[in-house]
Every structure is written in structure tokens, then in C-alpha cells.
């Protein structure tokens, strides 16, 4: 120490710390890595690193026939498979200029909304577990299991269904489908109410989520946020409502909109959407009539030359498919706009100035699925 003079400023000079989170972190719901720059307990900056689950689905699709590409779309967002199948089949149908018969459309919408319910129930459960509450995932999974059993009896598979086909659905639903779904909906409604009662207005949950990860509407829009996460910030943008497709125009439902754009709002939008989906499925069951489920078309889909962009509402947001056909039985290019990937852009504005302890709460509230982010 002899001969060295240290000024006070130098002695207390601090530097930001880099903190690596993931890819093997349970709260990232897959293989997602983010590098947090922290100043003490505050997050200064966040850099997401993606690509750990990249399988090249878009490129693989160029070597598969149109019917086979549906199996790849099953594996994009692997908790809402039927919604993904639906969007690709709609894109191919638009290209070919065919319209599936009405019963086929009703079956598609029922299955898609059931899948939305299953996906949101999973979100409610895993979000609670991210915040340290163990019980809701048990209730959420119990109901999701019932929905998956229903899928098994209709499509033959619990997750990778390959049931929605270009021009309709693979086969008609089993004869006892309508009463079984009605019974299922009553069970699921009770389950959603249970999760709701358990979690939504719990003081600890409110303290962890209220005013955390706030994003205002202009920022959310400029980040390309869609789905429940955008509606939490106060804009009623829902593709089902704004650009209606399938039989959605025949159904009456509300689009829940939040006020603050914080984690609690993003969570609560999904709970409210569960109730809306339940009512939608009930309306579909009432309106559905007998008829064919598959459009008249050639067995092997061969769309004419052209390109098309089709989008729809996934549980996570606005999913889009850009499809280019060169007139052969294989697509020339398939580009997916995955909602999870685009929603990740808003991670930085949300995380800025939050506490490290809230990083998991903010990431969880976006409800990303890495299969879709990395494709």
C-alpha cells in the first residue's frame, strides 16, 4: 500500500455484471438462453440467444409433399398442434382455391379452440410454477389430460395429430362426440374456475405480477407483440375478430382487453380467453350440422403457381404462413411468422429496470414455446 493513492471514486467504482440464464434452465420452458446485464439487483439489459431447438422445419418442408408438411407444422408449437395444422392447411387451400365443407370447418374450430384451452391451462400451471406455486399445475394438467383424451378419441393421437388436412379434416368425429365434448367442457370449466380461484387474486401472486414487466401499447406495437400479450396492453387485436376465417364470424364472443400491460394482465387475458373458448365450442356444437368433412379434391394436393400469406390466431398470438408454390406437389418455400419468436422482441423493453427475481416472471408471462421460436 506504500506510495499508492486511491481516490474515493475509484474505490467505489462499479461495473455491470453479466449473468447467464439458460439454456438448461427450467423456467425457460425449453432451451432458451438469455444474457442479463445486471446492476446490483436491477436488470440493465437482456440479450436473448435462440436456436438451440432449430430443426430447419421451413427448409425440410421444401422436400416434403403438401400432405407431409402438416406433420412438420404439428411440431412447431408443440402445445397447440391443431392450431398450427389449421394455419398451414388454410394457406394451401387458399392457394388451391378450395373451401372445406361447413361441418369440416366446425370440427376444425372446435378442435382448435379445445387446443387453445389445453395450451392456456398449461400456461396457467407453468406460470404458477415459475412463481413458486406448486398446486395450479396439478389442476391445469388434470384438465389438459382430459382434453388430450378427447383428442385421442377423435384424432388417434394425443399430441402430434396430423388430423386437419388440406380440404377439411381426416375423418368425421366419432358418433358420441357432441355429448362427450359437452361433458368435457363442464369439467374443464370447473377446472379453469378452480385455477382462477386459486391463483388470480392471491395476494402473493398479485405482489409478484402486478406492475412487473409493464409494456405500454406503442412499444408493444413497435415490437410486433401479438396475441394475449398485446391485448393485455390495451388493444383488442384478435385475428379471429379482425380478419375472420373458418366459422368464427358465426360465433359471438368477446375479446378480453387488459389495462396495464403487466404480467398479471397477460396472465389474466389467458384465463378470460379460456372462458371465451368454452363458450365458442358450445356455440359450435349447437350450430354444427351433418354433412361432408372433406372438400372434393384430388388425393395429392398440387396447388397452381403462386404465393399466399395467411394468418390466424394461435394461443400465443398472430401466426402467419407465407407459402410459395411452383406448381409441383412440393412447396417451393414455406415461411412461418411464429408468434413466440416475434413476442420475444418485447423481452428487452419489459425486462429493463426490473429485478433479477422478476426475470422469470416476465419471461414466463410471454408464454413462449421454443419449438416455434427456433423452428
Amino acid at each position, binding site marked *: 500500500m506504500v506510495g499508492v493513492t486511491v481516490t474515493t471514486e475509484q474505490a467505489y467504482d462499479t461495473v455491470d455484471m453479466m449473468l447467464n440464464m439458460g439454456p438448461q434452465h427450467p423456467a425457460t420452458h425449453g432451451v432458451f438462453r438469455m444474457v442479463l446485464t445486471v446492476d446490483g439487483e436491477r436488470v440493465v439489459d437482456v440479450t436473448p440467444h435462440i436456436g438451440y431447438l432449430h430443426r430447419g422445419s421451413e427448409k425440410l418442408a421444401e422436400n*416434403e409433399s403438401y400432405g407431409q408438411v402438416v*406433420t412438420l407444422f404439428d411440431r412447431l408449437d408443440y402445445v397447440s398442434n391443431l392450431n398450427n395444422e389449421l394455419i398451414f392447411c388454410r394457406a394451401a387451400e387458399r392457394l388451391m382455391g378450395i373451401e372445406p365443407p361447413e361441418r369440416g370447418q366446425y370440427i376444425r374450430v372446435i378442435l382448435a379452440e379445445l387446443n387453445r384451452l389445453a395450451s392456456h391451462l398449461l400456461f396457467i400451471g407453468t406460470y404458477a410454477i415459475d412463481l413458486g406455486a406448486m*398446486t395450479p399445475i396439478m389442476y391445469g394438467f*388434470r384438465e389438459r389430460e382430459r382434453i388430450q383424451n378427447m383428442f385421442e378419441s*377423435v384424432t388417434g*393421437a394425443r399430441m*402430434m395429430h396430423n388430423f386437419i388436412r388440406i380440404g377439411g379434416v*381426416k375423418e368425421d368425429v366419432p358418433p358420441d362426440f357432441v355429448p362427450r365434448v359437452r361433458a368435457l367442457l363442464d369439467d374443464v370449466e370447473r377446472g379453469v374456475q378452480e385455477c382462477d380461484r386459486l391463483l388470480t*387474486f*392471491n395476494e402473493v401472486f398479485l405482489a409478484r405480477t402486478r406492475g412487473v414487466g409493464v409494456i405500454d401499447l406503442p412499444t408493444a406495437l413497435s415490437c410486433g407483440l401479438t396475441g394475449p400479450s398485446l391485448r393485455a396492453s390495451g388493444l383488442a387485436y384478435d385475428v379471429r375478430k379482425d380478419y375472420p376465417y373458418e366459422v368464427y364470424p358465426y360465433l359471438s364472443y368477446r375479446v378480453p382487453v387488459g389495462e396495464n400491460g403487466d404480467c398479471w394482465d397477460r396472465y389474466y387475458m389467458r384465463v378470460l380467453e379460456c372462458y371465451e373458448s368454452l363458450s365458442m365450442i358450445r356455440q359450435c356444437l349447437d350450430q354444427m350440422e351433418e354433412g361432408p368433412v372433406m372438400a372434393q379434391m384430388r388425393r395429392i394436393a398440387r396447388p397452381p403457381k403462386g404465393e399466399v400469406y395467411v394468418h390466424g390466431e394461435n394461443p400465443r398470438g398472430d401466426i402467419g404462413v407465407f407459402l410459395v408454390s411452383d406448381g409441383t406437389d412440393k412447396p417451393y418455400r414455406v415461411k412461418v411468422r411464429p408468434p413466440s419468436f416475434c413476442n420475444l422482441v418485447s423481452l428487452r423493453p419489459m425486462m429493463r429496470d426490473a429485478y433479477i427475481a422478476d426475470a422469470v416472471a416476465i419471461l414466463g408471462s410471454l408464454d413462449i414455446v421454443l419449438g416455434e421460436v427456433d423452428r
Partner: protein
Amino acid sequence: MIGTFKGLLTTARWLLKRPVTAHYPEQHLPVQQRYMGFPALLMDDTADEPFCTGCMVCVRECPTQCMSAQMHDNPKFADGTSHRRKIINEFEINLNRCILCGICVDVCSFDAIEMSYEHELASYARTGSRADLTLLLDLGRRYVNMSGWTPANAEKNVAEVALAKRAAAAAAREAPAGDAATEETTEGGE
């Protein structure tokens, strides 16, 4: 405080109810009627041979290229005991690659392949997941016993029916024109 109390009440209600979980290795839940397990090949018992003619359409349409097949001339066709000119000789499915999509069943026009209920086929050997013709036919037989499967297009694919139909058509060709017409009407009446 109220929220916490509400939550406790909700969980307390479930304390006395039976759990919904099935404990897997001890307890097996039944599969649904439409359950799609691993693909299996089916036997045509009327000719004691598989339905599969080795047309390779499933091999070509499989998204993961998990199958391979080889056919040869059917000796039973020469005997006149089968209507299938070609018959499958070797068939192998790599169950590790299979993604259970059911496309092979959709494209098959011979009722030869079907998604069975098999889903517990783990084995200790590295090659244990390669199912050959014998195993696939065994799986198919189990599937038929469990599900009561019948061929969708029996008239075309079941040897007995198809042979009878051909014989009837041949008889009609040889008989005078008037008789053929009556025969056809009776056939239609049936």
C-alpha cells in the same frame, strides 16, 4: 389474506377425493378406439397371406422414410388361390424413425397397413426397434383381435371375395349374352 384462504379452501376440497392419476407401470389405461400406435401389417386369412402387395406407395409417402419393402411374384396367384399377382417378400419398419402420422394408412389402397394399438415396444437391443415382416404381421393380428378391424374394401382386397367375383365375371363372359345379363342383375340384387 382472503385470496390465500380461498386457495386453501379450494385445495382442501380435493383432499378427500380420489386422485385422478394412474400409476403407470402397475396400471395401464385403455387406449381409445381410434388410437394410432405403431403401424402393423394385416393378414388376409382367406388366402393365408398378407394383404400387402408391395406397391411401395407407403414407402414413398412416408415423411421420415422409415420403411422399406420388397415384393416378388405370388406363387398362390399361379395356383389360383389368390388374386394378388405380387406379394410382399420383405418389409421392414424402423420404429425409431416412425412418427405415427398415419399417412401410410391413408395412402394404402389394399387395406394392408393399419395403425395398431402398440405403443410399448421398448427394447434393450439397438436393432430392437426394427420390425420385420413376421413381427409386423403379429402386431397386426393382435390389433385385429383387439379392435375387431375388418377390411374397408373387402370386395377388392379379400382373396376369397375377389376370386369369387372374378370367377363370376369369367362365367358371365363365357355364357351367352342373355344369361350374362340375368346373372348381372341377380348379382346386383344381392
